[in-house]
Structure formats: C-alpha cells, structure tokens
C-alpha cells in the first residue's frame, strides 16, 4: 500500500483540477437556478425542491471525494461484487419497488427513495474497465460475448421497470467501451459507432415516417407516461419554450411557458427547456460549451491515463454523461422522441446527482494517479 500511495499526485489541486471542479459547479448551479425558477413560488410541502437539489449536490460532492480518494484499481477489483449487489437491488425494485408515474424505479428508504438503475452504472463502469484491463481479451467470445452476457441482465432489468432511457444509457456505455477497446473488424466497429452517433437523429427520421397512432402505440408501449396529454403536447410545449427564448432569453422568472405550467416536468426531464427559455441561445451555448469542456477534459484524462483500466474507466464516465446530455437535449428540442432521460447534473434527482458526481470523482481519481510508473 505505501508503495502505491507514493505514486499518487500529492501536490493538492492543480489548475486542471480547479477548472474541472469549476465546470461541474457551474453546470450544477445552472440546474439549481432553473429548478428554483420553476418551483420556488409554488407551495410545495416541506423543503423547497431547489434546496433539496442543493443538499443532494453536497451529498454528491462527499461521494465525489470518496471516489477520488480510493485507488481506482482497488475499486475495479470490487466491481463484480458491486455489480452483483446492483442486480439484486434491481430485482428488489421489480418485486417491491415504489411505483410512480407508471414505472417501478424506486426503493423507499425512510424519507428518500433510491433509484438502483442509477447506482448500478458505477459498478458497470468499473467492471468493464476491470474486465478489459485484466488481460488482452482475444477473440469474439472474450471480447464481446462474455461481457455482453454480464451486462445483459442489468440492461433487461432496467428495461423491465420500464425505464427506456436508463437502459439505453446502459447500452451506450457498453458499446462505446467496446469500440475503444477495438473490435477485430474495424468496419463493424464503425457501423456501431455511426449508428450510435446517428441514433437520435435516425430515430427522428424513422419516427417521422410513422403514422401518429403508430407512434402513440410504440411510445405507450415503452413508456406509458411519457406523454399523457398525447399527440406530442409535451414535446411541442418544450420546443415553444426553447424557441421563444430567442437570442437573449426572457430572464429569470420571465419564462411564460414555465411559469404558466405549459411545460411539464420543468424541474426534471425538461429542465433544459426552462434554462433555454430564460437564458436564450447565448445561455444555451454557454451551457453546451461547459458540457463540451467537461467531456474534453474527461477524454484528456482517458488519453493520459497510465493503464487500460484507467482509460476505459474515464471513457465510460464521459460516455455516461455525454449520452444523457445528447439524448436529453435532443429530446427537449424535438430531435428525438420523449423517452424520459434526465439532463446530467441539472435535472432534479438525488440518485442521479450522487451517481454523476461519483463518476466524475472516479475520473479525477484516474488523473491523479497517472504519474505513477508501470
């Protein structure tokens, strides 16, 4: 152990770390501001929601510190066990979970409700990194089939809740990690990469060609409550909210779409629309830039990591967050169907906040241990 610790960067935070933390804080603050705007004057029971989110941020940063502190190799060794626990929790959710808005996603825990489909993402990231980092996995079976079979039960259990968004996120992490590891057939790899990249847009195209009643059927099949008003009401209101923000936005509290409740779920899935309505194109661009900066820093960490475990862990974390950002904004801006994916670090939700900050902690963990030699 002392040997390992000697390899750790002990100089405290450098400029990169500060910048990394600053970007995260800025995004979370934008989220809390938007949640405040949607829910503040509302008479809600007990603690205001924006303060709850701030509390979750604090809890999340504690998890972040833990995730930075423990050597990721040690965590990677524990990952199979953690993943197993995650699967058991998902089974418990299916049997005894709390049903809300038509899907069973939560395990009530005193005054809170935890969402295991969020928490299992951490073991997934660690496990994939550990699996491919342990030794060279030659051949189709070891490269694709075995890890695929390990990931599949988690994917199916989340899909069954039903939580289409999270299960797609699960799949996306898996696919991007495989692509990074490299497939024997490069062509195959590019097909999947292209498919993944184009997924939201392709869906939009295919989707548009379907009859309305066919769309309704498919949507109500995968997520019965995605659009209770039917007929694209929520999607339309969200587009109106974003569009009417125009260049400069309507300012805090100025969003009529938000304040008059045309926009559904303003503090959760549609928080981006709230932000875009109030802060306009300029605000949206600043926000997008912050996310891009975060991803570039994450990929930088992956690029400079000292070993395969570190690289793959970093790629996984970036994919997890990027997937959420891309699909959520595509969804709120009408490029993808409303599937119910929260915007990472901005949408209200304790489980997601803690999980995302833990994952970002792992990212910094990889960076701070890269100076050690092989």
């Amino acid at each position, binding site marked *: 152990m002392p040997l390992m610790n000697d390899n750790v960067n002990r100089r405290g935070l450098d400029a990169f770390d500060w910048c990394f933390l600053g970007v995260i804080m800025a995004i979370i603050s934008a989220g809390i501001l938007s949640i405040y705007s949607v829910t503040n004057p509302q008479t*809600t*029971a007990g603690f205001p929601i924006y303060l709850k989110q701030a509390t979750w941020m604090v809890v999340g940063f504690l998890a972040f510190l833990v995730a930075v502190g423990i050597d990721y190799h040690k965590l990677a060794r524990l990952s199979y066990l953690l993943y197993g626990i995650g699967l058991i929790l998902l089974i418990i959710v299916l049997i005894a979970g709390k049903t809300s808005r038509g899907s069973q996603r939560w395990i009530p825990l005193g005054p809170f409700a935890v969402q295991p489909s969020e928490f299992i993402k951490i073991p997934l990231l660690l496990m994939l990194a550990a699996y491919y980092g342990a030794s060279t996995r030659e051949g189709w079976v070891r490269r694709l089939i075995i890890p695929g079979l390990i990931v599949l039960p988690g994917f199916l259990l989340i899909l069954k809740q039903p939580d289409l968004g999270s299960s797609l996120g699960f799949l996306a992490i898996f696919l991007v990690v495989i*692509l990074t590891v490299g497939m024997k057939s490069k062509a195959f790899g590019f097909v999947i990469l292209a498919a993944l990249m184009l997924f939201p847009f392709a869906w939009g195209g295919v989707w548009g060609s379907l009859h309305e009643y066919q769309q309704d059927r498919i949507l109500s099949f995968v997520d019965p409550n995605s659009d209770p008003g039917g007929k694209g*009401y929520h999607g339309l*209101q969200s587009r109106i909210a974003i569009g009417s*923000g125009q260049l400069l936005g309507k300012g805090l509290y100025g969003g*009529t779409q938000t304040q*008059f*409740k045309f926009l559904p779920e303003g503090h959760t899935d549609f928080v981006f629309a709230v932000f875009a309505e109030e802060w306009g194109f300029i605000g949206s661009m600043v926000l997008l830039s912050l996310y891009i900066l975060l991803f570039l820093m994450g*990929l930088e960490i992956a690029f400079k990591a000292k070993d395969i475990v570190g690289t793959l862990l970093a790629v996984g974390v970036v994919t997890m967050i990027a997937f959420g950002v891309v699909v959520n904004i595509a969804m709120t801006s009408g490029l993808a169907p409303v599937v119910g994916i929260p915007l990472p670090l901005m949408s209200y939700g304790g489980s997601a906040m803690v999980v995302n900050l833990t994952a970002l902690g792992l990212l910094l963990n990889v960076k701070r241990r890269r100076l050690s030699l092989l």
Partner: protein
Amino acid sequence: MLDTSRQANELADIQNRLIFVKIGFLMLLVLLGLRLWQLQVRDGFHYQELARDNRTRSIVLEPARGLLYDRNGELLANNIPSFQLYVSLEDIQDREALLAQLPHYVDIDQQEISNKLSMKSRRGRVKIKADITLKEAALIESHRLELPGVVIQPEYQRHYPLNNYASHVLGYVGEISESQLKDPEFSNLQGGRIIGQNGVERTFDEYLLGETGEEVIEVDALGYPKRSLSVRRPLAGDDLYLTLDIRLQRLAEDLLGQEAGAIVALNPWNGDILALASKPGFNPNDVSGGISAKDWQRFIKDTRHPLTNRAIQGQYPPGSVFKIIMAAALLETQTLGAQEMIPCHGTFPFGRRVFRDWKAGGHGQVDLTKAIAESCDVYFYKAGNQLGIDPIATYARLFGLGEKTGIALPSERSGLVPSSEWKKRVKREPWYPGETISISIGQGFLTVTPIQMAKVASIVATNGRVVQPRLLKASRLRRTGTLKEKPEPPFRQLAISPQTFAHIKKGLAAVVTKGTAKLAQSEIVSIAGKTGTAQVVALKPDGDKGKNKELQKEFRDHAWFVAFAPVEHPKIAVAVLVEHMGHGGSASAPLAKTLIEAYMGFETIQEPSL
C-alpha cells in the same frame, strides 16, 4: 516484461482510438448547437408568438367524492351539481377591471377576490367562489366579453341531506388551505382541491377523495374552451358505510333538543358506534359550500361552541359514574368484600374537614350493591381513602380513562386521570390524601369524555372485553363496485374476574330498579346503569349541594347517565351527558331509557343489513 510491453502497446492502441470517440461526441454536440440556433435564432420569433398565444389550458377535473351511508344504507352525504366560479390566470387582461366588475354580478367583495388571486397556487385556474346561483351564473355568462379569464365550471358540491343531524360525525369539506398545502400530510394534493376538513370527511379523506383527472383544452382569446385536446377521466372516491344507525342518531339528537350535551351509543361487543350525538350542532351544508370569512368568525366565536364535538372533546368530571371503576378497584385489590357493611351517617370527617354525603342523614348500613344503587358517597369516601390515589389511577386507566379511545375522528381529547406522580410533575406539589376522597366520587382533577364513559359501560357489559370504538363498517370501491366489509376489530380481555363484574352489574341493575335512576326503568327491557353529577363550580367539601336548583343555569352541574341493556345479554351501551341539568337520575336517565327502548324496537323489527 513481455506482458507489460504488450499491455503498453494495447494501451497506446486504445488511447489512439479515443479520437473517434472525441469526434463522435463533438459532432453530436455541434448538431445540438445547430438545432438550438434553428429553434431560438432562426425561428425564435415564430416560437415567441406561439408562446404568447399559447391557447392550450390544462384543467383539473375534480372527481366525485365518495358517498357516505349509515349502517343500513341510508344516505348521509352525496354530491349535487353546482356552478363554480373560476378565474383563469393566463387569460386575465385587466386585473383591476376584473376586481371592479365581478362584485356587480356575484355576491362577493373585492377584497376576497383579490385575496384568492394572490394566493400562490400556481394552477392556471383559481376558484373564486363555490356554488354560485343560477342567476349569478347567467349574469356572468351574458357579460363574458367584458370579463376575459372568468370561467364558470359545473362541478360537484358536497351535500348533506340530513342537514344538522350527525354533523359532528360527518364533519364537512372545504378547499385545501395554504397551511395545509405546506403540510407533508397533503403533499400529494394540489391547490384548489376540496378535501375533508372535519369529522369522518377528514379522517377517511383518503378513501373519499378519489383521483383528479386532467383535460387539455384549446381556448379562444377570452379564455373560453374551443375544443378538447386530451382527457384523462377522474376516478371517483370510495363510498363508505358508517357504523351509525341514523334512526338512533336522530333520536339521540332530538332527545337532547335545545340542551348542550352528548350521547354515545355503542355495540359493546364489536365497538360499532351506533350513535354519537353532540349538541348544539351545525349544518355542514353551510360550512362546506365555501363559507364566507365573516360567517366563519361568527361560528367560531359562538359561546355555545357548536363546532365542538362534545362526545369526544368535552372533558367533564365523571361524578358518581366513577363509582363503577371504584367498585372494580375495591374488589380486585380486596380492599373491601362485596358483602362487607359500612355504616353511613351522612358525613365523613377527614382531618379538619368534613366530606358530606349527597343524602343528609346518610344511608345507614351499606354494602357494595346498595352503595352503587343509592350512590352512597360516604362508602366510597372510606373505601377510596383506604385504596389510595395510585391504585385508583391504575384501575381508571385499565378502563381506558386518561387516554384517547382512538375513534376515527379528529381532535379527540384524552381526559385526565390524576396520580401522585402526575401531581408532582405538573403541579409541582405532593398529592394530599384529601384529594383522593374527592376523586373517589369522580370529582377533583379527574375528567372524562362521554365516549370514554360509553366504553366503560361496554367493558362492564361484556365482562371486560375492550374494543376500540369504530365508525367505518364497510366501503364500496367505485372502480370495481365491490363492497368490502371491514373486519371486526381485535379485542383485549381485562384481567378482572367475572365475579367482580357480576357484583358491579348487580349494583348497576339495582340503580335502575330501586336506586337513583328509577326513571330509567323500562317495561320492555332490563337496563343497568349509573347516574352521575359533575360539579361545574367546585363547592366546598361541606358546602350545601341541595341549592343546585336555585343556581343560575351556567353554574348548575352536568348530568350523567351511563347504561347498558339488556342486563343479561347486553346489546347496547350508552353514555348520556347533559350540561347544566343537575342530577343524572332525573335529566339523563330518561333519555337513555328512550334510546335503549327504541334500539330494542329496531332490533326486533329487522336485522340491519347492507
């Protein structure tokens, strides 16, 4: 080290491939940026107009509240259609004009409208007035061009066909208040909902409430609906069958008449509350239809307290009714035998004080039966002095005094059973033995509620079976139409011997046949009971109680009568309390007798069935 170098090669491979991931994500994010440019900059003006003219409105559809019935299926509360006046916040064009105009057409003052509008309920529509008249509705409809944003919506209004009867049990409904909205108990409810505010309407609200629906409509420039875009139907609440027998309830309230008081009748075996009357009452229809602030103040300030449910909230000294519990304590602790004779000369000197019997000259030689039948005070003074306060308190608690019965009604009070520990804790004084002597005849710090006394009668009637009084007999799920009987509540058996109960019952029967409640003697059913007189003004221990009649009414004592019948196989337990009517034997006992006789009559005519 071959392995290490191969790992290093592989690592380099993998890291070189990261460029594709980077390009992939960047392309996607740039695409999103373009999309946002398209929506916000290129088409921004178009969406701005759409937002300004957003003509879709989401309306909450109120479900029909569950109906209330008595045990025989008699309707106690239903819903009738009525007009509700709403203002749709998005559609108000000139707030001041609206405030000035509306009072011309509807009976409401400007301040009240302005208060409602400033309530921070963020729903698009705010209810301004419930249950407006047809004339008001017509007036508003004809002026709708001048009143953009004003909407009249037909909705259900709670209605209580029996008016004042059973008002305290049923309670009333009202719009959820600002403070309730902040209470976690109501966290799943939105502003504007009508919820139970008192009585069973409150306690069984979760069954009665139902689930709201939602309709998305498109409106014209004045906020009037043009077409419906989508509807989710509301789900009506469950219908409830109470344990009340409304015939008995009516009779109980009529018997009390203009007097203030309470009557509770129970089925002693399963705790079914057959009647729970409290007078004076109120008409829940007056309160539920959105009572004006002025009327509400008048209600609350009424010195006769019509909103107080005396049956569960009135705390009175039990007076001589407490001798039932004293008798149980004496026999069970073997302080006195049932046959043991005690001489009574009408006074009990204690220290420097003299406690008097209600009967000047005394009762002569008294055993337990006679002491109960004639309500001999001296017997219980002596016995209580021997027992001491703490055993008395223990037995009082065994019979459920000093704690809530747990009936499903809000704001039940627990009464008070004093003990030496209580006095030290609350009054910071030691217990004086003289106080025990007052407690022995149910005076002093001791207070009870009428429902607790009905429970005491039930326990004696059933030889020690303790059941929680219940109000809900069955419920019918509106969704499925199935009637579900509530299972009989569990009971507990008191560790008091059957012999003790036999001795007490013998005494209670003698109360009616030859004791203080001969007025309760019935030709058709055998009744056992105990009279009591609860002092309102503490008289000195040696003060003259005989002057009661000359006192002003509000200083007169309260009259108790607690009974069960038939003596052999009890079917009903009753507690009657009439405020300021003096002696239980003359004021309360006849009421109990009439009630019991009526109930026996119902029993022979028909078995209640649902």
